[in-house]
């Protein structure tokens, strides 16, 4: 199949009979936009952007909350030969200063020539023009000049198709450069016979944010290239009432829908029996699960709960992917129930070996297979020196092939390091068994919560603003608890010798307010617990190691108090200590593990 650039793919899709549907909150159809209409509207936007003085090859930052306007603006920019850089829109208009503070660095890094937004947001986003030198205009999509330029700008396959800002902290954003060739290769692999095997009979359903790779590349562009219909539902509508997603699938007879693990968990926990009365999920052929660690327990619980309304376990497609690989890396075969590998926990943490668990062994860890790489793509597991490891040995996941991104914009050293030796260093740890990939941790210290990557620096910065928290003595890290869930832990030292009881609560409050991350546990540690190092990363590694071993609060200090508060009840602490030390990615000294 010939590889198409985005404008070519839209042009081809316009003849397919497919399109996008946009649902209102209750999941009923709101508006439809056939690809032919979308092409028309995108060409109008493209002409308007050119009339506004934008030249092919320039970047535009997209800050557009609604799906229809977003996709029209995104494809309009592509048709004009521009490079769209989707950014998270603000959730609340009254916290604009904080939003601008968080967004300005990404706009600056993107070197955007313009910000494309909506009439409503334009007033407040106007400040970006003054703030970022490259930005010549802040344009409202509704107010673009009505243009007569209707032709697609010629772009080559090796031109940049989009900039993704899903990696990197908000203070130090990294723009992932994806070319049209990357995009075409990845979406063709996703949709093709070794991927989902999409046909025109398929219908997608997505509530995923379009500013995120799985929502944009996976659910919008893949179906566009394949010429099928897809409906979009607002992320907030799903989060408010998870049943809305399932009802929308059932009503539209959707066949394909992807979501992170937490979304399936949310359905298990929050969908009420009365909300299931008229559900029929037998149409759901592919229930993709990715963007964060996939938990066997979640998939099993979801399959159990929704079996009576037609959901089949074989529909699950646990997968692995990352923005630096355009999106998807591995898929298991479609139509196979999730393959679960039960391994011995002790070997995993001590020797980084994934050996099958047998009855009578101590603790076990269950991991879900994410399948194999696509044809024309390579995957290997490597040790710290880059040497390939045999099956069932845990190491870093390295990737090669046409979906691998070109690099981070303007970050040559980092790009060289990430792409060293011609392999994309994913930063994730995993192993192969029977040729299939199992992901079991991370080399990098980012924290994944509900499918989004968060950087410890952002959490630490927020906590450092709290009165009585000692500057430079704040550490945030993620740790896997015994059930495989990621827990966010923060360790802080106080300035005063006897900190007030609510210090931990104030830290939690400040962090959730500023970053949206709910910290599972705040440990107010005695002074001197956190050693001052030059590298935040090293500091995090040391503190996390001691936390996971359960030695963090062993008396080194004689004054001050070690208060464990927040969510952490005593029993949970014992649980976390016992299991966390055994689990994953940390080499634990013999004798300390049990």
């Amino acid at each position, binding site marked *: 199949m010939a590889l198409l650039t985005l404008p070519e793919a839209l042009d081809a899709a316009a003849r397919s009979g497919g399109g996008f549907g946009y649902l209102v909150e209750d999941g009923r159809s709101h508006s439809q936009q056939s690809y032919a209409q979308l092409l028309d509207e995108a060409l109008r936007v493209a002409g308007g952007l050119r009339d506004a003085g934008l030249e092919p090859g320039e970047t535009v930052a997209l800050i557009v909350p609604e799906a229809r306007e977003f996709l029209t603006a995104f494809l309009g920019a592509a048709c004009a030969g521009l490079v769209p850089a989707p950014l998270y829109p603000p959730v609340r208009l009254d916290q604009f200063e904080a939003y601008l503070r968080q967004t300005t660095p990404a706009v600056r890094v993107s070197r955007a020539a313009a910000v494309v937004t909506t009439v409503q947001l334009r007033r407040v986003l106007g400040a970006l023009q003054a703030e970022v030198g490259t930005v010549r205009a802040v344009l409202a999509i509704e107010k673009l000049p009505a243009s007569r330029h209707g032709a697609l700008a010629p772009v080559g396959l090796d031109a940049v198709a989009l900039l993704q800002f899903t990696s990197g902290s908000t203070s130090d954003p990294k723009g992932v450069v994806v070319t049209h060739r990357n995009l075409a290769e990845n979406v063709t692999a996703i949709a093709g016979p070794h991927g989902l095997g999409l046909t025109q009979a398929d219908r997608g359903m997505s509530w995923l944010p379009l500013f995120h790779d799985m929502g944009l590349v996976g659910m919008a562009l893949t179906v566009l290239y394949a010429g099928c219909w897809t409906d979009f539902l607002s992320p907030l509508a799903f989060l408010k009432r998870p049943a809305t997603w399932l009802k929308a699938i059932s009503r539209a007879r959707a066949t394909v829908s992807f979501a992170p693990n937490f979304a399936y968990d949310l359905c298990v926990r*929050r969908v009420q029996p009365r909300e299931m009365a008229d559900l029929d999920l037998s149409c759901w052929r592919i229930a993709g699960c990715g963007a964060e660690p996939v938990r066997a327990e979640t998939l099993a619980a979801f399959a159990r709960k929704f079996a009576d309304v037609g959901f089949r376990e074989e529909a699950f497609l646990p997968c692995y992917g990352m923005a630096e690989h355009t999106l998807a890396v591995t898929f298991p075969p479609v139509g196979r129930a999730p393959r679960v590998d039960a391994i011995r926990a002790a070997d995993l943490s001590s020797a980084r070996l994934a050996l099958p668990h047998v009855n009578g062994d101590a603790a076990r860890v269950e991991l879900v297979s994410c399948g194999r790489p696509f044809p024309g793509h390579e995957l290997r597991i490597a040790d710290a020196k880059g040497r390939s490891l045999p099956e069932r040995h845990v190491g870093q996941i390295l990737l090669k092939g046409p979906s691998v991104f070109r690099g981070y914009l303007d970050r040559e050293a980092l790009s060289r390091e990430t792409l060293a030796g011609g392999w994309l260093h994913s930063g994730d740890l995993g192993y192969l068994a029977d040729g299939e990939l199992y992901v079991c941790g991370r080399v990098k210290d980012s924290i994944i919560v*509900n499918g989004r990557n968060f950087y410890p620096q952002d959490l630490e910065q927020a906590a450092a603003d709290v009165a009585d928290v000692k500057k430079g003595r704040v550490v945030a890290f993620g740790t896997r608890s015994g059930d495989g869930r990621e827990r966010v832990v923060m360790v802080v030292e106080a300035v005063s010798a006897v900190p007030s009881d609510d210090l931990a609560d104030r830290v939690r409050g400040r962090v959730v307010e500023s970053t949206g991350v709910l910290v599972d546990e705040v440990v107010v540690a005695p002074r001197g617990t956190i050693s001052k190092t030059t590298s935040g990363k090293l500091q995090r590694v040391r503190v996390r190691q001691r936390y996971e071993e359960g030695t963090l609060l062993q008396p080194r200090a004689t004054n001050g108090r070690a208060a464990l508060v927040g969510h952490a009840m005593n029993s949970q602490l014992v649980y976390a200590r016992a299991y966390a030390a055994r689990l994953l990615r940390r080499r634990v000294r013999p004798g300390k593990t049990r």
Partner: protein
Amino acid sequence: MTLLDSDHIGRDVLAILRRVCRRPVDVAAHSALAADLGFDSLQTLEFVAELEDRFGITVPIDQVPRIQTVGEAVNCVRSLVAENSHP
């Protein structure tokens, strides 16, 4: 008499709040869901959905971000319940 215990709406909102919170908290009308009670966005939305179920109302998605404190939640429920009874 305060905003939270003057009628069944205040008391029910409080009961739902405690259930969604899943840990003991001190709640006042001015308590902020995020900063004081440690709610993340998922919990806030769960709280709103539970309010909808209990009171038979629909809180439009674009109104949700305006609910920042316990008092704002109570007032939002009151006005939507009033709208329902006087269409």
